[in-house]
């Protein structure tokens, strides 16, 4: 059963078609890779799904409901969380507070009334934050300012923050950028754990090798259009994909 469906989704900036008539279906429970050279419209697609950018035309359907053009916080409330290509933590908030502000799952909202939720936080909520920190392996750093964390820790915190609202779909925008091999492997393990926990993952990446091992299916974008879709092995052999990656796109090779 599809969890996310994009139907002829388009985004034009003036004359530039950043995303052009994109059709995409992500099945529940899979790790889906969205790859493409720099500037191929991957991040724009994520921003369109999350409501950061207004859609020019087309539809975003999540779990059978149309969420096109919803504001970002309502997209999150629907069950879609994301991370950013360039890490966007709240640098002057502590690690703990970074997770605290992200406790916005539907259960959180229903469970507590306004005053309790905003001004008189319960002990249960604090325990939840601690648990999430534990899971992310950042419990020792709970009182550090987020800006003072190492790069890898910041990535982990951002992932934990995205998970805090217990999303059913997670959009990861180049989570491996800047990581070394060891960290990438750790990330792979983490994604598998999440998958087992029932979270569907869309992994956006421009370095092909990184997504081959972990994804179930892959779609390739170039110039805002989908040029290929299929199993990792098939994508690797696809001529159009190789053409796109080698066809003068300098940015592809660095990791």
């Amino acid at each position, binding site marked *: 059963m599809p969890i996310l469906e994009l139907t002829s989704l388009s985004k034009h900036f003036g004359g530039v078609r950043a995303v052009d008539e994109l059709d995409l279906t992500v099945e529940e429970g899979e790790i889906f890779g969205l790859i493409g050279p720099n500037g191929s419209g991957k991040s724009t697609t994520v921003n369109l799904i999350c409501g*950061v950018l207004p859609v020019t035309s087309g539809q975003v359907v999540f779990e059978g409901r149309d969420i096109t053009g919803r504001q*970002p*916080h309502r997209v*999150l409330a629907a069950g879609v969380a994301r991370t950013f290509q360039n890490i966007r933590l709240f*640098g002057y908030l502590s690690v703990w507070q970074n997770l605290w502000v992200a*406790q916005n799952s539907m259960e959180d909202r229903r469970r507590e009334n306004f005053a309790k939720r*905003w001004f008189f*936080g319960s002990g249960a909520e604090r325990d939840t934050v601690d648990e999430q920190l534990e899971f992310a392996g950042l419990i020792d750093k709970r009182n550090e300012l987020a800006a003072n964390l190492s790069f890898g820790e910041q990535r982990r915190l951002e992932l934990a923050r995205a998970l805090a*609202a217990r999303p059913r779909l997670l959009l990861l925008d180049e989570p491996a950028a800047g990581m070394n091999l060891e960290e990438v492997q750790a990330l792979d393990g983490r994604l598998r754990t999440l998958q087992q926990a029932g979270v569907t993952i869309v992994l956006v990446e421009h370095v092909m090798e990184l997504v081959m091992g972990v994804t179930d299916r892959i779609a390739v974008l170039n110039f805002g259009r989908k040029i290929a879709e299929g199993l990792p092995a098939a994508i690797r052999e696809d001529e159009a994909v190789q053409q796109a990656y080698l066809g003068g796109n300098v940015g592809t090779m660095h990791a």
Partner: protein
Amino acid sequence: MDFFFGLLQIIGVHTILGLSAYVVLQTGQVTLAQAGFFSIGAYVSAMLTVLAGWHIVPALLVAATAAGIVAGIVGFPALRIKGLMLVVATIAFGEFIRLFWFNFDYQIEKKGIVVGPQGGEGFKQIRFFPENGWSTLDVAIFIWVIVALIMLALWWTDRSRAGAVLRAVGEDELAAQSVGINLTAVKVGAFAAGGFIAGIGGAIYAHYTTHIEHLNFGVMLATFAIAYPILGGLRNVFGTLVAVIFIQGFLVEGLRFMGDWRNLLFGALIVLAMNVQPRGLIDERSVRLVRGLFTRN
């Protein structure tokens, strides 16, 4: 002693003004409209006590609510703009309110005298305090009870999840939205809360100066409103208080003996302070320093 109580009143009212901007600044929005909301509090409360004969407390609450509602309404269009645009938009809005009072004429006859706001000539004889026998000390205590309540509320907010959310929005709006924070609600809420607090300040101002006119609520007052929290630091509410004491207590009152040199020093010291302490007088370093003083033995 009356003088010190009087100074306490001034420091109290300016602290309220500064705190009204503090709330909005926490969400990363620079507002120069606080003088406008302050003036709404002043005019509305004065009309209630002078024209309608109300007691100061309900008048103050109604006036602050009015200012809060107007501020909330400003908050909506302000959502779309940031940075310099917001600075200019809020200046314009504050000036718009000021000019409204400049053109606002409404007088009635009470006990044989005509009272009420009178356009460019202002609104005189707002004498609730002296007429009801409140001494300078009484007024100072009244003001400081209010200041304490506001500071307590904001201090509590700072420590609650709401405070963390305000700061999160201030740091990165997009990230905040993406973790599920309703930007509209937070920003409009902050504006409305700031307007409400400014309204309280304005209501007290009108009654302890007994006379208000539109020129009192110009761009310079709005600038001071944000100067206090910025100079004091946005780390916590005490920064604003420290900055008000620094400006009103030290620069204005303390340096009065310097006569006409005082004003020259005034600007220069602000420039210096911002160069030495760009994150405000109360920042991580000065907090550590003060803690060190008490623990070093």
